[in-house]
């Protein structure tokens, strides 16, 4: 379990002669690590995630998972979306089994489904219809469905953004815990800086027009992480500064975006300092300087 991911010089255009939406992205993610991608809306985070999942192909460059070029979707690197996308004509058990059935892995299916439901704390909901569950429970079912196929990589496209704060926090901690237990590589796209810091071993800040990697920050905090921990607050401050730098560094910088995030987190309005890109807590990164 766990797979390394290499992003090899990805450039992408939605139409042949259109502008680059992503430009020369290079990054390595180690097996079993968790990487959070943050950036302004429209910077191409979700597009990149779809490329990692094989749901889209880049115009130039490629993605490799464990050295294997990603050319199409595969259950071993599957994605969780903002909406759980549970099939309403199936009950919870059948939804959890869906990935296994799609991939033809039907050996010991019932036992596997039972294990996954127990893992996400929904053993008593197997016969329920998805539409009878809360939003948080539905995302747990989607998580169980993803985990059932024993993935090496799970790609999270803002899966908790529609949930209330308490449910969101619980799921962030649970997903990170399960991924660590099973050594699954996580890539998370989020607009929530606290979520990025709660779940990421490293956080990548993306700029836009075109989408580039602006900065990477390694998070040296023990799990489970607590937002009221002073070290967490310090890292948040640092990340806010990087985010602000990425916004102001854009051709069409929008201060309002930064203000919105600063207000949302109720924290630092004036970042204390901006750490140079290549000094990420003393760790090295293959992230290129695209500024």
């Amino acid at each position: 379990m766990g797979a390394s991911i290499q992003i090899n010089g990805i450039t992408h255009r939605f139409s042949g002669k259109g502008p680059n939406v992503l430009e020369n992205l290079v990054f390595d993610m180690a097996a079993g690590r968790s990487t959070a991608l943050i950036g302004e809306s429209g910077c191409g985070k979700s597009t990149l995630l779809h490329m990692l999942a094989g749901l889209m192909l880049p115009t130039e460059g490629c993605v490799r998972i464990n050295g294997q070029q990603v050319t199409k979707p595969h259950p071993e690197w599957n994605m969780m979306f903002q909406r759980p996308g549970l099939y309403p004509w199936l009950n919870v058990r059948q939804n959890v089994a869906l990935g296994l059935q799609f991939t033809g892995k039907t050996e010991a299916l019932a036992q596997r489904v039972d294990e996954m439901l127990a893992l996400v704390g929904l053993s008593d909901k197997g016969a329920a219809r998805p539409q009878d569950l809360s939003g948080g429970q539905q995302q747990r079912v989607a998580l169980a469905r993803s985990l059932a196929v024993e993935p090496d990589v799970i790609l999270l496209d803002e899966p908790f953004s529609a949930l209330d704060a308490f449910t969101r926090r619980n799921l962030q901690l649970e997903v990170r815990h399960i991924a660590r237990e099973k050594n699954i590589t996580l890539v998370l796209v989020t607009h929530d800086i606290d979520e990025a810091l709660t779940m990421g071993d490293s956080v990548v800040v993306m700029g836009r027009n075109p989408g580039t990697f602006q900065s990477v920050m390694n998070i040296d905090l023990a799990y489970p992480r607590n937002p009221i921990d002073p070290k967490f607050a310090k890292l948040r401050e640092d990340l806010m500064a990087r985010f602000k730098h990425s916004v102001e560094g854009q051709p069409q910088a929008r201060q309002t975006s930064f203000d919105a995030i600063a207000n949302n987190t109720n924290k630092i309005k004036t970042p204390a300092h901006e750490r140079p890109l290549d000094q990420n807590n003393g760790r090295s990164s293959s992230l290129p300087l695209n500024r």
Partner: protein
Amino acid sequence: MSHSISSADIAARPRAMPWIKLRRQLMGKIAYPLIGLAILLAFWWFGGYLIASNPATQAFAGFAPAQALPQAWQLFISGTLMGTVLPSLYRIGMGLLWAILVAVPVGILVGASPVLRQITGFPFQLLRMVSPLAWMPIAVLAFATWDGAIIFLIFMAALWPILFSTAFAVQRIDPMYFKIARNFGASPLASLQRLVLPAIAPDILAGFRLALGIAWVVLVPAEYLGVTSGLGYAINDARDILAYDLLAALVLIIGIIGYLLDSVIVMLIRYLGWQNSD
């Protein structure tokens, strides 16, 4: 006047609830339908009375319930009813089967492909507007047997409701469901089996219900075509021998069988449908 509620009143309420619920269920499932039936019978009886009391129409007095109902019972207990109904059920069953076999796959293709939808839009709408009975001369020419011609007419009547409801249902499938299937590397066949068919099943059944209603209406005039069996033939025959009580009994039986067939489809929709889940 005091409006205070005692604790005994509150305690008594839950005991009253099941009785109220039972009364509502009895009214909804038995009493109201019986009232509707009684109103229909009253109109029928009054119509029969008017016909019988007018010397100019007295010959048609057999239409009244007093004559028609015993005749229907006689048909039932004598066993001749089955001999009349079964050929009709066979024809309608075959017509509907062919309609499903053609309409569901074509509907899925039309629903899934915007290009195919544009290509077929005009011709399908044009053909849909042609009365199924207008195909009668062509059916007689094209099929070697009368049965074949009648089944073709029923097929033409049932085809369009199933095809259009299938195509519309495919268009309405949430794109997220396809994304989930692709995400797990589902093959097209697995997606069809586990996603498309279950997702569109309630709409196919709704289209089938509509098709059954139209086909059942078309059946009787279609069976005027040459055949010597079936409900349409029996009605035609009853008219020819001036047996109006038999004719009215057959009309009643056609209505009852149509209602029973529709009820079976409604039960299937409830059983297979997922859209009405609480």
